[in-house]
């Protein structure tokens, strides 16, 4: 029980954004199993709306989506003072160097190519949340 208590105290909200409902479903199930609160969005605009209404601690962001792609969303979020601190992990099928480079330049904390290894992704999520806490404190 103590574990549950601990997790609850630390519950982080993750926004999963992907236009593929299957991927969103599986990721949500996995993340919730691992104790995260999950919010979902299926395109770029919805993502922005969710960020505004339910500000997440981290966003898993697909790239190719209808109604604003991931790259544009990233740009928008990083341009706003309220949202620039939110760590964003790109989870995408685009594996070209130039896509990775532009995402990193745009402020994505990690870039994960589909199909991903969930355990690896989980590690990256945890690390990103930790580093976010660290970087926020001094500021």
């Amino acid at each position, binding site marked *: 029980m103590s574990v549950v208590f601990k997790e609850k105290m630390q519950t982080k909200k993750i926004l999963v954004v992907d236009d*593929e409902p*299957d*991927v969103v479903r*599986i*990721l949500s*199930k*996995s993340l919730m*199993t691992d104790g995260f609160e999950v919010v979902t969005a299926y395109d770029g605009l919805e993502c922005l709306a969710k960020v505004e209404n339910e500000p997440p601690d981290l966003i898993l962001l697909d790239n*190719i989506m209808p109604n604003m792609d991931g790259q544009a969303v990233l740009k928008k979020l990083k341009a706003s003072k309220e949202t620039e601190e939110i760590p964003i992990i790109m989870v995408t*099928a*685009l*594996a*070209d*160097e130039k896509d990775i480079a532009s995402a990193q330049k745009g402020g994505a904390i990690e870039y994960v*190519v*589909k*199909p*991903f290894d*969930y355990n690896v992704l989980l590690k990256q999520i945890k690390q990103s949340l930790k580093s976010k806490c660290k970087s926020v404190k001094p500021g």
Partner: protein
Amino acid sequence: MGTETIDKTQILTGKDLIKVLLVEDDAVDRRTVERILADCPWPVEFVIESAGSLSEAVECLGSKRHDIVLLDLVLPDSSGVETVQRVSEINPHIPIIVLTGLDDEGTGLLAIENGATDYLIKDQSLDKILIRTVLYALARKKETENWWRTFDAISDLVFIQDKDFTITKANKAFAEAINSKPQDIIGKKCYEVLHNTSTPWPGCPYQKTHADMKSHTEEINDPLINIPLLVTTSPILDDNGNLIGGVHIAKDVTEQKKAEKLILDTNLQLRETSQKLLNAKQELEKKNEALEKAHKELETRVEERTAELSKANELLKKEIAERKQMESYLRASEANLRKVIVGNPDGIVIVDKNGIVRFVNPAAESLFGREDKELLGETFGFPMVLDETTEVETIHKTKGIVIVEMRMVEIDWEGEISYLASLHNITERKEAEEKMKKAMEIKSEFISMASHELRTPLTAIKEGVRLVIQEQTGKLNDEQKEFLGIVKRNVERLARLINDILDFQKLESGKMDVDMQKNDVNEIVKEIKETMTPLSSEKGLNLIIELDDSIPIIKFDKDKITQVLTNIVNNAIKFTEHGSVTISTTKGDNDNIIQVSVSDTGPGIKNEDLPRLFNEFEQLAGGNERKTGGSGLGLAISRKIIKKHNATIWAESEPGKGTTFHFVLPIKERRRKPRD
């Protein structure tokens, strides 16, 4: 008898009129003398002038010429021998006959000693002997005169000396020769006069004559006379053969000497000349010998040369024949060459150094769609880049743009530096290349798109299966677990295949760059060991690492090299059933490289299969590939990545014992940009 006497008298004296100076103070005596002379029986006339005193006589002698003087010694103003001396002084050559008194014969003799010619006593005998005495005196005088004339006529220098070297007589030539007068020389010692010495001169031949009373001749060069003289001295002997004096005759031999000298000089010259001639002759002989020798040598050489020449000639003939043969070959080959040039499908253009076209072959004509007469003399118009292949575009008269691959080389064309341009029409090839490029792009895009499209559903399948298999959606029975495991493995395999295809596509299209950063190879190996150990343990294999700690930190792309090493180790584990897999690092043989090796104890690879290992989609037949689920792209990708690092990868194997893969990384970065 009488006429004979007259003749003789005249001959004796040489005169018919005799001028007489009678010096007599006694008138009686005077008349006596005058009478005697007037009564002269011979056809001789006497002209008498009288003087009564010495002073009168002196006056007469000075003003007129007289032949003889009749002198009374006792005069009012003079007496005795003194009178004779005075008259003699005035005219030394005139005969003086002294008239003395009766008992005074002593005075007469004294008078003769002092210069008188004769003396007569004034008595009755005077009648008889006066004329005779006068005539004799005159005759004697004439004789003396003649002797002197003769003496003086001698051109040689003559003097007579007594036995004591005193000069008694000297001729005119001698006196003149020593710039003197006879009267100044007479009575002096010859050596005083001639040699200015006080004792007889040792060189004088008279010394010898003096000693042996014979004639002697010497050549004398007397500095006082300054002319070369040939001196002959001859003795004057008395009846008893005793020497009383000598004759000294000196002959001027200047001319003779000159002549002699000339002869001598000439002789000398002759001798010199003859010597020279002799020398010249000897030299000539020598030269002659040398010449002969040279001649012989020349002959030998000429013979040799002739032999050589005839040999050369033979060779030349042979060469000419060969040349002719060659020429015909040449003509044939020229014709062949022409065929080659004319028939060459590539255009050939010769351009001079000013860029003017000098030659075009038919292929070039058709390339430009213009005839050679249009092209020749025109400016070539393309950049002249030597020894490099360049692409140029030219316009064909009818076909439009033609793309030409041009290569230019410098050549000698008709003796001038020119350029040969070889033109290859690559228009079709270019078009094909363009098409190919487009096709490749489409393929690349397709693969990229396809793999993207595959990735998303694959993600869903994979993660969905994982959720179920991890029993997060409820408990599973063993059979469900087994089959979902099959699904999971195949999904993973599919995922790897997609990743590999995408990687390979990226590498092939040049879209993958290497990110060269300083890294430690040993660290990578350690990480690999960590990640791969679960896999090897699963199969019961030992994963061993042997690291060389001295290898330096070098620049390479960490992710890509990790990918390569993962791939190789993964393969090694996959194909090995028993034993171990060993990863080792070492410094290469020449300190320029780091070598990474992965050895396994698997079945090994046949030698003939080794070269195909790194080919794409190459999976070795008969292997348990199906079981291991490889894409067939792993090693091809690894090779491309290693190539991007300017490095090499290879494999060694012994079937039945195992396989070792090696790759090396350069320690120093190479400047050259990788070609792939």
